């Protein structure tokens, strides 16, 4: 297990270096920030632009800029925003909790709903409960999330006026964004849990557990669930990455003050420091979650732990 973890941590470090390099490079392809900053400032000479570039530090060679940025990560110094000069770390510090809360709330909703439903569908395979759950999950899968978000706003905020349409202000404001993100995840996960459970229930050791005289619920929740969780955990980890990617759209619709909104604004302003910091933080989150998945894997599956 120790060897396995060290290997994974080394891999994670490599991934982060690669991601930051690609991000820093790609961000600089979006255009000249000096031009963007000087928009509407009347007549601008080439010298003015050069001075702005020097002030922002974007006139230095790429590798120098990258090294500054990369070394900054270790001291949590991501530089200052090109807009207004706020330290980037403060911007991230404000946005990160909002995004994390939303992401974990959606993951939690999806897992809490999909596991019991998936198991129910698996044990009543072919019966009406199974058919019903599968049809509902298919409908859930068919919604694009931006459309669903708008429909929810229309119904609950504008027509019924039950929930706030945007912003982050208390528990009520969580519901719609979390449901929007959660529904699509749940729809996929129900099918996944169902398939994994069906496969596990075919195993010989399930027959053996029944032959011991154990009750169906012990067979299901003790013997089957833990085995069925092994492939699911990997998938949930991967899903978390996809979730963070999809969060940009949902944050925009609900005007959620998270990393997605921050990144969206930074792209428009060619605010390199903010953009590369947001993407770096997101990729570290994804790598971190997958590392946790690997550890969880070892805890659940002794075949990995004792290797």
């Amino acid at each position, binding site marked *: 297990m120790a*060897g396995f973890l060290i290997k994974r941590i080394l891999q994670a470090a490599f991934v982060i270096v690669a991601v930051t390099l690609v991000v820093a490079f790609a961000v600089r392809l979006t255009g000249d920030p000096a031009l963007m900053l000087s928009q509407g400032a009347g007549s601008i000479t080439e010298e003015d632009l050069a001075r702005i570039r020097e002030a922002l530090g974007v006139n230095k060679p790429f590798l120098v800029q990258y090294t500054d940025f990369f070394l900054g990560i270790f001291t949590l110094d991501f530089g200052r925003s090109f807009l207004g000069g706020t330290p980037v770390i403060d911007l991230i510090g404000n946005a990160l909790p909002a995004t994390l809360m939303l992401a974990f709330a959606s993951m939690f909703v999806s897992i809490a709903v999909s596991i019991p439903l998936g198991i129910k569908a698996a044990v009543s395979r072919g019966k009406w409960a199974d058919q019903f759950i599968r049809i509902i999950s298919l409908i859930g899968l068919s919604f694009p999330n931006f459309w669903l978000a708008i429909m929810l706003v229309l119904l609950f905020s504008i027509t019924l006026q039950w929930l706030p349409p945007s912003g982050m202000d208390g528990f009520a404001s969580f519901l719609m964004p979390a449901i929007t993100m959660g529904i699509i995840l749940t729809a996929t996960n129900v099918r996944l849990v169902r398939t994994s459970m069906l496969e596990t229930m075919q195993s010989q050791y399930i027959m053996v557990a*029944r032959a011991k005289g154990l009750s169906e619920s012990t067979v299901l929740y003790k013997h089957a669930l833990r*085995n069925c969780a092994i492939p699911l955990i990997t998938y949930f980890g991967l899903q978390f990455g996809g979730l963070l990617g999809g969060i940009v759209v949902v944050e925009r619709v609900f005007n959620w003050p998270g990393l997605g909104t921050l990144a969206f604004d930074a792209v428009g302003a060619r605010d390199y420091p903010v953009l590369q910091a947001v993407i770096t933080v997101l990729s570290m989150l994804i790598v971190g979650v997958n590392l946790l998945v690997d550890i969880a894997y070892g805890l659940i599956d002794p075949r990995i732990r004792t290797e």
Partner: protein
Amino acid sequence: MTEHAPILRIEDLSVEFGASRVIENLTLSVSPGKTTAIVGESGSGKSVTSLSVMRLAEMMGATYPSGKIIFEGSEGKTDLLALPQKKMRAIRGKDIAMIFQEPMTSLNPVFTIGDQIAESLILHEGMSKKDALKEGLRLLEMVRLPDAAQLLNRYPHQLSGGMRQRVMIAMALACRPKVLIADEPTTALDVTIQAQILTIIRDLQAELGMAVIFITHDMGVVAEVADDVMVMWKGKKVEEGPVKDLFANPKHPYTKTLLSAVPRLGAMAGEKFPKRFPVAVMDGDTPRIVGSEHIQNTAKYDAQPLLQVRDLVTRFDIKKGIFGGVTHRVHAVENVSFDIYRGETLALVGESGSGKSTIGRTIQQLQKATSGNITFDGRPFASMGKADQQRLRQEIQYIFQDPFASLDPRKKVGFSIAEPIHTHHLMDGTKQIKMRVDQLLERVGLTSAHADRYPHEFSGGQRQRICIARALASNPKLIIADEALSALDVSIQAQIINLFMELQEEHGLAYLFISHDMAVVEKMSHRVAVLYLGQVAELGSRQQVLENPSHPYTQRLLSAVPVADPTRNVNRTMLDGEIPSPVRRVGDEPAIVSYQEIAPGHLVANAV
């Protein structure tokens, strides 16, 4: 042992899955201290019978249109079929326990051995976890597992198949059941391990006085363990009786054909060559005799050998360190040398990890050799170009154990048989190829109409015939048959053995016959090589190796084979211990054995 009243009586039991009836009006009774064997081929309903006693069959969709299963428990007579599942759970695992066929998958991979044994005790005996683990330790010692205390904390994947099956037995016996159902408990195990497991079951039965229902397709095992036998065929009981009577004087035609098809190790003592025997086949309800006795003198020892293998070594790297360095290797094959002549069958026998399949795969170029030389028809592998290697793939054909897995389920069998003809450009013209396919199908005992069907429409035996037809399609000189008969029922097996031998005579084919079944090897091979941990322990003619086994491992292997003769006395005091693993640390190389020729062509490895 004194006669007891039956403890379990199955009366007029019928079982249906949907509309198809798989058991019909079955009646059987078993007594304490006795072993009743249920024998039959695949699909005869023997496993469904046992699962019905456990009331587990209905979880797979079974219904019981008629019958009773009367169990004489501590609380008087109970009809198990009338019990609600909730009450049945109190009997299942406590009074009636079961051992399953696949020890590798019967234990839950995420729980320790200790937890899994303790579970029954906590459930049925109301023990505390601590007491249950203590009792678990005693049970593991009872099934003679070494280091039982440590095993409690181990996980299933850390145990070999034989050890897992012992854990299963310990688990099943935890609550001292009155009836033990053993469903093919040794089928997936090597013979020496099988012998150990059978001994353990028999000893514990004597100690606990339980009734054992032993389900098997292996008549050798039946002869060894059973007091009474019930023969099932197509969901019905066709015959039952005490084991000696049934073997000596079978009455039903099906029992007769079954017993006549069983290969008996030692039955060919004194014969110089392999031999074909007539086989009785059930044709509807009456047996029909197919084939005739014929001596198989086909090997051409005066010519150059077709295949020469010299000092073959095949190793696989496994287990790598953090930076990708290899720490462990499987020493699958170590310095193996042998020849195969045209028209000859050389059997490679051995148990798991002996390297027999790796040798076959290396010759077929499915696996790269680490070192050594292989020469086929005078051409060394090492000097072959791409074109020569391709030709080799035509001249050497492989037949696998699982005929279903080796046929593409989405392609008609005619296509699969024609494929090698296309690949190797052996023939032109759709019409000619079609004729060739029809002719091949007829040769292996099928009809040309079968070419338009898909693999799932055939039985296991028919599928293996299709695989043989496909192998023949490329006019091979050598066929490697890797456990090609192991998955087949005995009557089918006997027919396929004859087919192999007929084809050998017609086409002068050489066979490398890889098998763990000594009785089949005795019937069809000219020479035998016994493998142990990747090296040849003994090599010689069939008669030399089987009638004068001179290496201790050969002797051990032969003594472990169950023989379908209940009058034979079994003495297996020499069997003990596990087969060592061929996985070794890098740097810890195995010792290479040297040989002594004790008779012309009879090589025996010296002790290391």
